[in-house]
């Protein structure tokens, strides 16, 4: 199902703000974590995700999107064109 999509600018600040809005943060090694547990989040391919490769969130923050093309293509069915 296609859901509403918010586009944010490409800056670390904007990324941190989007993460904060969704209960997530960044650890000392720049990996994205769940604020509540400190656990590092995983991309759909099972990789830990750094803030640098973070490109968005899907499905109410559950799925972390990375900025490589195959991952974006994989998520594109759910994102408005």
């Amino acid at each position, binding site marked *: 199902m296609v859901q509403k999509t918010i*586009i944010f600018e490409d800056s670390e600040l904007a990324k941190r703000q989007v993460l904060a809005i969704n209960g997530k943060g960044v650890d000392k090694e720049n990996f994205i974590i769940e604020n509540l547990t400190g656990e590092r989040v995983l991309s759909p391919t099972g990789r830990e995700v750094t803030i640098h490769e973070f490109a968005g969130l899907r499905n109410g923050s559950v799925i972390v999107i990375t900025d490589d093309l195959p991952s974006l293509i994989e998520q594109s069915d759910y994102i408005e064109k």
Partner: protein
Amino acid sequence: MIDFGTALASILAKGLGIKLEFIDKSTGKTKVTRKGGNGPVIKQKGRNNLIIMPVVNGSLSPETKPLTEALNKAFDNKGINYLAAPAREKLSEYHQYESTIDRSRIITTLSGIIPYRHIALIKTGLYLRMLSDDNKQNEVNKIYAGLVNYSAEERYIINLASARHFNHYILPTFNELKGVNDGLNKFLDHYYKIVNDPELALFVHRGMSAENVYRSVIEMAQKNLKYGVVRHKIYVHATGISNVETLSEAYPRIKKIFPLSVKKRLARDMPNLTIKIPYQTNALDKQN
């Protein structure tokens, strides 16, 4: 029913000091609906209620909580997607090609048969091929730069698609096997052998010398012969000036051992060289 954008505007306007801009659906022009504050700027564009939110003014502080609540209310807690502007741009560029990317019906045929993840890799490879054919080398390089964390298998699937092996080898194999008894399982068996044990094609990269290329071809041929692979063909692909030079340097030595069929494409910005090696079982006797 209240328009989505209007609902969001009214919620965000309440005490958040947020400037909202909407793009008028009929004219496409930006319409500022409320001014004030230094907080995030939110734009609505087009029919799909797409919101562009360049987050400007820094701190994560007091705005964050009300913004979360406002967004959740506005979206009725149905789940929102967030996407960075460059990622959105990459996808838009990809979507321009998407309708023409599957002329050979690779995606439509293999969807639901091979893993979902592979489909995205194949789409990427087919897209890279189209960009290469259009001499868009910068875009190709940018996409490859984003694949640094990918496994060798994942990159191999992308490269196989980019080198048209899905068009010329894997899809025809599927079409051939689909009519025979237990054809689907036979195809999948064959498919996984190809993507997990990449002895079909060698992709020259910057870390390889001519000696590496030559040795790799010999090793691939030896392995294929050892396991009785009936294909008896190896493809060597080089894309880009330095890779083509490396393969050209290895070429005379390879030719001494194997009868070669060479396909050379010299695009303006994208030199591209492919060698097809239909080796014979006794070819390796000539190895020096």
